[in-house]
């Protein structure tokens, strides 16, 4: 009786193992590949749907965007390679502070941030001088014709009265040319 019961238990255990192995094999070889493919295809379809919706929105807004873009196009136009752009940007800054009575402590060119259709140039300038001169520099940057912007400003008083040390992080946006964008 004990042997029979043991055999029966072993048979049941064997059957359970066979069923589990068969189930796992079926899932791994038959079901799972299809499920994975389904997930990939669904993701692709969702991306396409989003893209289509966005494109339809772009088409609707085309006229308005063209209008605005025609106004800002001269401000953002590219003037050569990255090096040429950096050179131009530093020259523009130099023109702004050279006529002021400030002492330039350092000018550091930061890495260029490349976006899809434009690039952002960044320069860190440290200077010291009379507060009035520093304020003149800030004013000239904020009213400059090209889209340059003070991203960060640190001012620290110095021991000489009305003299301050200033640190600027200044950026400029430049459009990429068609070949650069590709």
């Amino acid at each position: 009786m004990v042997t029979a019961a043991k055999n029966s238990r072993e048979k049941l255990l064997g059957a359970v193992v066979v069923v589990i192995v068969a189930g796992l094999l079926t899932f791994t070889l038959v079901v799972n590949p299809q499920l994975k493919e389904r997930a990939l295809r669904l993701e692709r379809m969702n991306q396409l749907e989003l893209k289509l919706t966005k494109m339809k929105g772009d088409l609707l807004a085309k006229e308005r965007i063209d209008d605005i873009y025609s106004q800002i196009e001269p401000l953002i136009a590219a003037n050569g390679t990255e090096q040429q752009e950096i050179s131009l940007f530093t020259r523009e800054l130099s023109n702004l502070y050279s006529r002021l009575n400030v002492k330039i402590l350092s000018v550091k060119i930061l890495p260029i941030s490349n976006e899809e259709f434009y690039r952002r140039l960044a320069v860190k300038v440290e200077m010291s001088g009379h507060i009035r001169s520093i304020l003149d520099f800030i004013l000239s940057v904020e009213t400059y014709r090209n889209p340059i912007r003070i991203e960060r400003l640190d001012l620290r008083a110095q021991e000489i009265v009305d003299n301050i040390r200033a640190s600027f992080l200044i950026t400029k946006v430049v459009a990429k040319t068609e070949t650069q964008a590709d």
Partner: protein
Amino acid sequence: MKARKIRTDWGALSLAHDGSVVFCAQQNSTLSCIRFDSAEQFMEAIKSRRLLVKKWAVAVPRRSCILKSLALPASDLSEAARMIEFELPSLVPVPLEEVVYGCTVLSKQPNMLNVLVCILKLNTLNQHLKPYRDIGVEPHLVIFDSLAIQSWFNSTSSTSRAAPGPLIGVLVNTSRSVVLTSVKGNFHKGNELTLSGTDTAILPREIVQEISNQLEELPDILKNKAVIVIAGTENHTSQIRNLFHSKSRDATVANETAVVSSPEITCYTNGKCEPDADTHVLEAVVAAGLLDLAKSSNVPFFNLLPQEYLGRFRRKTLLFNCLFAALALLMSISFFWLCLWAMNRRIESKSNRIASQIAPIESIAGNVDKKRQRVRAIQNQLANRGLITQIFQELYEYTPNNISISELRILPERSGASIEIKGQADLLSSAFEYTDAMREAALLKQIQIVNAQQIPRLGGSVVEFQARCVIRDH
């Protein structure tokens, strides 16, 4: 009009001497018996799937069996059945592999079981089963007919009997043939008698005499407890009952009598049977008794079919079930896989449709997107232009004279700026009044002193403070 379609797990079959076949099955706990005029008609019913039966039960005549009563030191029938296998060589002078046997409990005593063993030669069994196999029936249960008749009497009269006691069953098969079966003690003891006479008027007297003989064989204590159950056609049963009652009035012992109706038989062809249908009462009772036994948990022990045959059948059934399950599983998996495949195809075709909508507008929309991104970048770049100048203007205008600023940090954002100021004041109160002083300012009205502490200096002290302001929605 043919009988309705029957689908059942167990069907019992009994072949009559005139070539007709009596089939009984239980459907919705109702017994229905059908008589087929010939084996061909029965086979036609099977072939046309009007009869769908999973397992068949048939009976072999009691006279083919060797019946032995054994007292075994067993606690239950399964243990007794194993013991009988060792006892068989001493019971019959035939090699063990040439006989089959079945057993049933006669009575129970403490640590002892009285069993009735029915031994049958394998050849004889095969001879009896041949007619069934010829009509396409492979039985799963074979029992000797007396046991089936007794079982039917027991189950039929169990409701009408007041108390359990010995039962003497009288089945009037035809006006010329009677089957009388009795039990001794509380359990079965097949004792079938077949009487026949040429004069129908004499027959009841013979039956009553035989009943009296049976009663005489019982122990005194059980004599008045015995119940006589009479079944058959009404005119015969009432005749026997009346005769028995009139005889009992003369005797000192009065036994309980009950008349039960035999199973109703319908004919396969037209639903109603001809008037001589009672000729098949015996077959119907045997078939009905077989069905009762088939439902019993003791089936394996009184089944006369060889274990190898049953094992072979079980293996065949198991194999069939496994194959069926595997096929069903395979089909389910295939169906599931097809569903997933179809789903993927549908997603793919929808994606292709969207892609085809995108293709013609892609370059125009891409150009618009490029311009939009550049416009946004320029807008960000030009946002809050002049804010720093304005902040300085307010600081110059609203900062009290007793406050001096030593450090200033401005972090312009898209819609505002974050400002941190470090400065000195002559008094602690002056530092905190700075917030009030700036309240009139348009941009710096939210300025807050976040830290202020008095620091001793030569000739006095000075208060150093930190202030913070966040400008939003400029």
